[in-house]
Each structure stands twice: as structure tokens, then as C-alpha cells.
């Protein structure tokens, strides 16, 4: 997509665009807080849709949580599911549109709490959908309550003394869990805390969509993400917390990569 700028009366271009806003994003401003990496995740998905040239074939199933308005941000056909039900709704959409690309975009409360049955069974069936799972260890939209993925000791508005395993159980590792299911062909965890990891995340998202294009089965990318507002940090402090607290507890890695996906961008070497 290189765009070149020509100097008048010169044959040679002066400069070229090497990075621009992906066309699969709508030309609107998002409602996300400053520094929220939801925006980054959106951009990566849109870049992948552009690169694979599948925007016109893609249907988004939004979920409930901070990303509830994601249907306003992607320039694709979209619907909005009930809280946690995106994988079920996506199943309905995909089954009657088997040639289309269907993805859900879900947060941790949606996917790992209220919607665990739906995500587990969509994966178990090998539903040919792609799931973008944004894990920021907190309920953002409702104002910072404890999430199923909140860390032990993490203070939230509903765990004011820090998450206590006796009281609230242990955080849940979804990428590992979903990798256990035979219908899953791709389950990986990436992080969005710096440029290098963002680029790795994009490769994984691309592979996840390729898995669907090739009709292989269920693919999911868990993205460790930040919530500066509810964590009470600056955006850059929040990214540091992702790196120093979330990444050690939620190890980045490839938990399942179907052999048919080996050797692609984002697949392990």
C-alpha cells in the first residue's frame, strides 16, 4: 500500500508512506480512555483485515464491556451480542454464512466469566471463528471491578483489600485452557506493552484469521492489555505494569498451533 508523493516536474518520488491508519477502521474517534490498548488491538485487527483483503467478507460480533462499541470502529458488517454470548451469536452467523470471516472481540469479563460456557463450547466444536480476547485483568466499563483474570492481591473496586484466593479463587488462564480443546487450532497469548510485542501480536492475529480462511477450526489470540484509568496509572505506567505484573503471571507463548499453521507469520520458528 505504499503511497508515493511526487515532486512537481520530477519523475522521482520524494517520500513514501510507510505506516498509515488501516482502511478497515471507520473514520471516527473511539470512546476509549487515553492510552487504552483496546485501540491498539483494534488497529492491529484492522491492519490484518486490510492485508488479507477480507474486509468485505468479514462480520464482527461485538461483546459487552469496554469494547461494546467496537461495531462503530470496524468498517465491516457487525452485530452486538449479549454479555458473554458472542461466541454463540458468532456460531449462528458463521453457520449460515460459512464462506464469510466471522470474529468476536471480547474482554475478560465477557469471555472468561459470564461467557465461559459459550467460549468453551465454541472452541470444543471447532467453530470456524476467530476470537480476539483482550485481557486487562479488570472490568473497565463498569468502573474497575475484579475480573476473572485479576491478579492475586490486585486491588479493584470490588476487591478493595486485594484479590484473595480464599475468597475469590484464582485467576483463570484462558489461552492455556482453550488450547486443551480439540476444536482449537490456534491459541496463543501476546502482549501489547511495547512496539516489539505489538508487532508480534499482529502476526498472531494474522495467523488466527488465516486459520479461519483455511477453514481449520477455532482460533483465539489473548492480548494482555492495559487499563490506565481503572488501574489508576498513567498510560505508560500501565504498560510497565503489563510487562512487570501481567506478563509474568500470564506467560506469552503459543499454547496450540495446529501443524497446518506452522511456518506462517506468527507461528513458532
Amino acid at each position, binding site marked *: 500500500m505504499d503511497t508515493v508523493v511526487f515532486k512537481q516536474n520530477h519523475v522521482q518520488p520524494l517520500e513514501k508512506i510507510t505506516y498509515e491508519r488501516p482502511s478497515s477502521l471507520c473514520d471516527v474517534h473511539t470512546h476509549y480512555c487515553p492510552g487504552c490498548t483496546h485501540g491498539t488491538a483494534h488497529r492491529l485487527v484492522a491492519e490484518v483485515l486490510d492485508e488479507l483483503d477480507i*474486509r468485505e467478507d468479514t*462480520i464482527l460480533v461485538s461483546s459487552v464491556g469496554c469494547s461494546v462499541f467496537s461495531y462503530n470502529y470496524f468498517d465491516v458488517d457487525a452485530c*452486538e451480542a*449479549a454479555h458473554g454470548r458472542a461466541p454463540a451469536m458468532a456460531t*449462528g452467523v458463521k453457520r*449460515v454464512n460459512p464462506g464469510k470471516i466471522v470474529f468476536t472481540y471480547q474482554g475478560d469479563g465477557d469471555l472468561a466469566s459470564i461467557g465461559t460456557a*459459550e467460549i468453551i463450547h465454541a472452541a470444543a466444536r471447532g467453530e470456524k471463528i476467530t476470537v480476539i480476547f483482550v485481557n486487562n485483568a479488570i472490568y473497565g466499563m463498569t468502573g474497575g471491578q475484579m475480573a476473572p483474570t485479576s491478579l492475586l492481591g490486585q486491588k479493584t473496586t470490588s476487591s478493595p483489600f486485594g484479590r484473595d484466593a480464599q475468597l475469590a479463587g484464582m485467576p483463570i488462564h484462558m489461552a492455556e485452557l482453550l488450547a486443551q480443546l480439540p476444536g482449537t487450532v490456534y491459541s496463543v497469548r501476546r502482549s501489547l506493552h511495547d512496539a516489539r510485542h505489538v508487532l508480534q501480536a499482529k502476526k498472531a492475529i494474522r495467523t488466527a484469521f488465516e486459520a479461519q480462511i483455511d477453514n481449520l477450526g477455532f482460533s483465539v489470540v489473548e492480548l494482555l492489555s492495559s487499563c490506565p484509568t481503572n488501574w489508576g496509572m498513567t498510560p505508560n505506567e500501565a504498560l510497565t505494569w503489563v510487562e512487570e505484573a501481567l506478563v509474568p503471571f500470564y506467560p506469552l507463548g503459543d499454547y496450540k498451533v495446529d501443524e497446518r499453521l506452522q511456518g506462517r507469520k506468527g507461528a513458532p520458528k
Partner: protein
Amino acid sequence: MSKQLLKGNVAFAEAAIRAGCEAYFGYPITPQTELLEHMSRRMIELNRVFLQAESEVAAINMVYGAAASGVRVMTSSSSPGISLMQEGFSYIAGSQVPAVIIDVMRGGPGLGNIQPSQSDYNQVTKTAGHGDFHPIVLAPANVQEAIDLTVLAFDLADKYLTLVFVVADGAIGQMMEPAELPPMRELPFERPSWALTGAFNRERNLVNSLYMGVEGLEELNFKLQAKLAQIQREEVRYETQFVEDAEVVLVAFGTAARVAQTAVQRLRRQGLKVGLFRPITLWPFPEDALAEVSERSKALLVVEMNAGQMLHDVRLVAGIHTPVKFLGRMGGRIPLPEEVEHETVALLEQLAVAV
């Protein structure tokens, strides 16, 4: 096409298929399971979509997804499963996509039992989940009607972009009667313009029930109310028997109406002036027609297989001038014609004394 001896549940399923149902999502629950089983075989044979979901909650949300994609889709369940689906109904209502739900009711509350009941009247007619909405609710009283109303349900769902329920009690689901199936309809080649099919050479489509602004949501509600008003004007259905000169009119739907019909026929043979009013659409409730009947008669007797749910709608129509009595059996019990006769005769005697 000649008549076949068909089980109600099978009739629902095959009628849906012939009406052009392209996708079915469901979860087993007695007493509607034969419906799901029939779908599991026939839909696959026809290369259509059948999926046994992990729960009723998932099933209705799969229905929502397929409905948003513009195909004829349905699910079926029974009372506790319908309770679970209420979330999905509400989203479907708010999104204005068409879907058909078959509810073969059983006794409640709670897990209740699997015997025939009309326990879901309130939960299907009064609203779909939270919010201000009424699905269209059709109530067959025999297997032929189960077929005809299922076909109608798909047509109404498409016409009004709404949820349509066909509600039967377990007896109608389990019973076999001679009935005639309609011919198989061709499936449409094209999806509606609003459907989710990928934004190829067009603006993107959005199917959604979320309106953060007050104005937007109120505007949606005005639209929904206008649609419901139109349905109330145009889609009322009911049946009457012997109401012209009836002193007491029995009001009942589904299996209860069949029992009432037997009672009415026996009492007529004894020369007693009794009639039957049977709502076929439970929503829209046939208010005007019943009001007319109620004005002519001395009393109404509502017969239901619940503690009195339609009763309240009848009372609203009858007002304070026509007494409304109630006979209900609960817990999966079907009232017997003898009970209904007895109650009707007692009511006639009371009226005679009062005069």
C-alpha cells in the same frame, strides 16, 4: 397431499422445514425433544443448519446470529428453557430481526414436571425479556393448527421483523392426529438488504439493540410500539363456537380449549346456552372480539392449565359488568370435561339465582 398421522412435535418441525427454515439451534428438553430430533435428521439431509447448542442460552443467541444474517431460523424449548432464553428474546426484539420460537410448555414453577401445562402464558405474552415488547404468540389446539401456525409464524416474523412464538402444551407436542403438511417451499436466493453477509460493494450493516442515547432508544421504542399497534390491528386471530346466544362463554386456548369444547358440546346437547371463545393469538389478545362476546353473555368462565394467567387479560376485557370465573388445573394436570361441565353448570345456576 393426503393426511398423515403426525405427532405434534414432529409436525412443528416438519412444518418449519417446509416453511423454509434454514437453520435450527436447540437444546433437548422434554416434552419437545422429538422436535429437535426430527430437525437433527431432516435438516442435515436437506443440507441446512442444525446444531445442538450447549444450553438454551447459547441456542437463542445462535438463533440471534442466524436471524441477523437474514435466514429463516428457529429454536424450540419448553418452559424452563424458555425462561433461560429470555435474554436472547430481548436482544432479538430490540434488534428487530425475525425469529420463530416453539414452546411446548410443561408444569412449573422451577423444574416442575414434564406434564402438559400452560404455565408460560405470562412469560411469552407480556414481554420478551426486559423492556417494552410483545412477541406475536400463536396457540394451536391441534396438530393441523400446529402446522399451519408454524408456517404463519415464519411469515409473520419476516413481515414484521419480530419474534413469533408458537406455544403448545405438552399434550399437543406429544399427541398424534391426522394432519396435512404443506408443500416444501423454495429457499430464497437472496438475503434481505439489512442482513449480515459481509459489506461487499455496499455500506456496512449493523444489527444491534444498544442505544446509549436517551433519544435514540426512545425513538426505537416509538417505532416498536407503532409496529406492535399495527400487529394488534391486523393479526388478531380467534375462534368462537355457539357464542351468539350463550349465557356463559368459556374462554380457553390450546388443550384447555379442546376440553372446554367437549364440555360445551355436551352441555348444548342438554339444552344449556353455553359457548366457547378460543384465542388463537394470545398476543395480540383478541380484546375487541371478546369484549363483544362478553357484553352479550351473562358470565365468562376461563379455563386454563395454570393458576390463571390469561384470566387477567380476560378480566380487563370483561370489565366490571360481566363476572369472570376461573377453573384452572396446575402441575401438569389437564382438566377433564366433566370438571368443566360441572363448573359451568354451577355458574349457570348461580346466574339463575341472581336473576
